[in-house]
């Protein structure tokens, strides 16, 4: 990844960061999509998809309910996809390091969204007297300001993490090469267990449904063994 390639990544991070909450919530910010797009921008959509699938499973337990503070998976997935695909040579090691950087970015992103929301609140309170006084132009102005702040938040976060991660990943990737298989196995196991537990808790407590899920799981494991 070169410094020149950081700009499109930052723009993508801004766009998917915006999609998480502000506009248009079309779920281009879901890890499976955002990481694949980042991978494609780096020339290896397949590596991005792998990182996206890992993060998608890990993201299943933190859905954006109400006003709760949750990790921001959009920019995080761009970071993960870019590292998995963008630092040559793309390898299983960069996949794990990408997922790791993505998880850390998701945590930071959750905090950055909290600050943008607080900022929006301050702007909204300040504008209230003008609005109550009959100045309706305040409404689109607040929307535009909020959207701009959210885009910049995602873009800056993505660019900063990628710039910081690049030398670390370049140094670490060859050093963990001999353990790659174990780390990838661990990543897959952690992803699978987090997704399974999240779905289990979301689903209604109906014995028949759980039996169907167990049967589907057994069938899938049989297919996985036989392939």
């Amino acid at each position, binding site marked *: 990844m070169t410094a020149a390639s950081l700009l499109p990544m930052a723009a993508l991070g801004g766009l998917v960061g915006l999609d998480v*909450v502000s*506009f248009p*919530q*079309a*779920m281009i910010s879901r890890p*499976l999509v955002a990481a*694949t797009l980042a*991978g494609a921008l780096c020339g290896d959509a397949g590596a991005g*998809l*792998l990182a996206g699938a890992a993060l998608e*499973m890990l*993201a299943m337990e933190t859905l954006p309910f109400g006003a709760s503070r949750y990790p921001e998976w959009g920019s995080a997935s761009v970071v993960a996809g870019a590292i998995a695909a963008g630092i040559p040579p793309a390898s*299983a090691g960069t996949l*794990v390091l990408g997922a*790791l950087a993505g*998880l850390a970015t998701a*945590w930071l992103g959750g905090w950055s969204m909290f600050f943008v929301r607080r900022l*929006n*609140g301050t*702007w909204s309170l300040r504008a209230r007297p003008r*609005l109550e006084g*009959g100045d*309706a132009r305040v*409404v689109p102005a607040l*929307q535009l300001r*909020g*959207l701009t702040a*959210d885009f910049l938040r995602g873009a800056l976060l993505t660019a900063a993490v990628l710039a910081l991660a690049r030398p670390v990943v370049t140094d670490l990737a060859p*050093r963990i090469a*001999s353990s790659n298989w174990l*780390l990838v*196995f661990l990543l*897959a*196991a*952690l*992803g*699978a*267990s*987090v*997704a*399974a*537990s*999240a*779905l*289990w*808790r*979301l689903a*209604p407590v109906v014995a028949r*449904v*759980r039996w*169907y*899920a167990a049967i*589907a*799981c057994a*069938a*899938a*494991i049989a297919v*996985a*063994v036989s*392939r």
Partner: protein
Amino acid sequence: MSAPELPRRVRAAMFLRLLAVQGSWNYETMLGNGIAFALEPALRRLPGGPRGEAYRAAMAREARYFNSHPYTAALAVGALARLELDGEAPERIERFRAALCGPLGSIGDQLVWAGWLPFCAMLALFAFGLGATPLAAVLLFLVAYNVGHIWLCAWGLEAGWSGGLRVAAALGTPAFRSAPQRLAALALVLGGAAIPLAAKRLATVVFCPSAWWVVGFAVGAAALAALLVRSRGRVQGWLAALAVLTLATMAAAW
């Protein structure tokens, strides 16, 4: 009584603005400003137009605190547009707004975040596990998810406008009441098939394991999942994964 006509371009403008209903989301007014932003094309039709006193008062009123799910907010926007243009009393509109917040938030969260989104994610992961290309997996997820997203917003706007004060009836249909639970159940069953296949595709990037490895992997992952379920939310799986992966990577680099 049938609903009065609202021009198609006004509805289209309201629909597009609904996509940015959370554009200035904050802890003070939550979706309030976004609701006023989405309603604005309809409010221009108030007596006196956008320079009139009725328009200004309505914009100030609609920008106050409002909370709901962003997609089901379409129902509120449709209904509030109808009430404002019908000339309902401001106190009545404010009481109606306050009454809508809880039900719209709860139904939207259950239907979309706990049902539709996990279902579509599992559908895409299932395709990924079966070997789908990046383009196919991404398109499958985006198309499936946004069919539901766009439909819910468009339906909500229309049902809100038609229903006005009686919009709650639209949410009380048996299909709406049972859909969240059915979708979450479907997501679990689909996840049962998708997660092992996706995990296998991911884990076999480096080497091709024997059947014993796959079974051992499945038992280990199932045990971890059971631990997370038993923790009842006290342990956040993604944070635990961050900690475990960091330690494992540091150990490997050592």
